[in-house]
């Protein structure tokens, strides 16, 4: 079987809907190039560790922040370019310091 025959055979079982893998990676690449992914990830890691320490779920954090669990999921992947207002909201919700620590 040639390479092309193998590809043709597998193509018969191709998914009918588009994967978001490529578009997600392109967004992440842009965020990295713009420089904010580095910071959004640091906030994501700090948030995740605080959640684990305090035994807080995504749903509970969403309730405390007044947002959706989907938003919290994106925040924890560093996918949100957070505003100062949103960071303050997160600090209050988890009783942690993010900005204060950086500017102390």
């Amino acid at each position, binding site marked *: *079987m040639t390479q092309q025959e*193998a590809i043709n*055979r597998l193509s*018969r079982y*191709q998914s009918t809907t588009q994967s978001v893998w490529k578009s997600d*990676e392109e967004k*992440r690449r842009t965020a990295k190039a713009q420089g904010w992914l580095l910071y959004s990830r640091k906030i994501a890691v700090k948030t995740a560790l605080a959640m684990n320490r305090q035994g807080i779920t*995504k749903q509970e954090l969403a309730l405390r922040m007044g947002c959706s669990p989907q938003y919290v999921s994106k925040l*924890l992947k*560093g996918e949100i370019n957070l505003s100062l207002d949103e960071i303050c909201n997160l600090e209050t919700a988890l009783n942690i310091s993010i900005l204060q620590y950086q500017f102390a």
Partner: protein
Amino acid sequence: MTFDKIIDDGRLWAVRYDKDDDNVLQKVMSQWSDAHWLASFFMQNIEDLISYFKITNIEDAIYQTMEDRDDLACIIMDISPDANLDRFFRPLDNNRASEMILGKEKGRPNRKSWLRLYAIKLNVGIYIITGGAIKLTRTMQEREHTLQELEKMEKVRNFLIREGVFGEESFTDYQKEAAI
């Protein structure tokens, strides 16, 4: 089970398992960028992290994973038409010397990384990603999450044989080619 083309020329695919919204590459890449998922994983596997990698700080492990994950994404996103995928994927069994039909393969961003992509080799230079894992132990059989990856590879392999994607005629072709 269906398959998603990862690169347009059809040399790299990823499995979309039944009931999943997207393929396994999307799934593992998403997990490896999720600080919450990673924190939970490393807390559960802290003993392996310490004994095999001498890392005691979970925060360091999370950042290392994210960095390696980005490197892996770059490798895949930037595969050029003349790139040889046989150089990225290697036999799962380090001692396997000969070609194997629908061979089980692994790929990683660099030699030191604990990240693994697992794949089935459909033909020369054509791979199907079946899953991925953070491998902290020497063998895959030692932990449930890596053992599951072995099972997934077997499941995909059986599907390809059963559905005739790599059928008896291909098996004969393969034997002829191997004999040359």
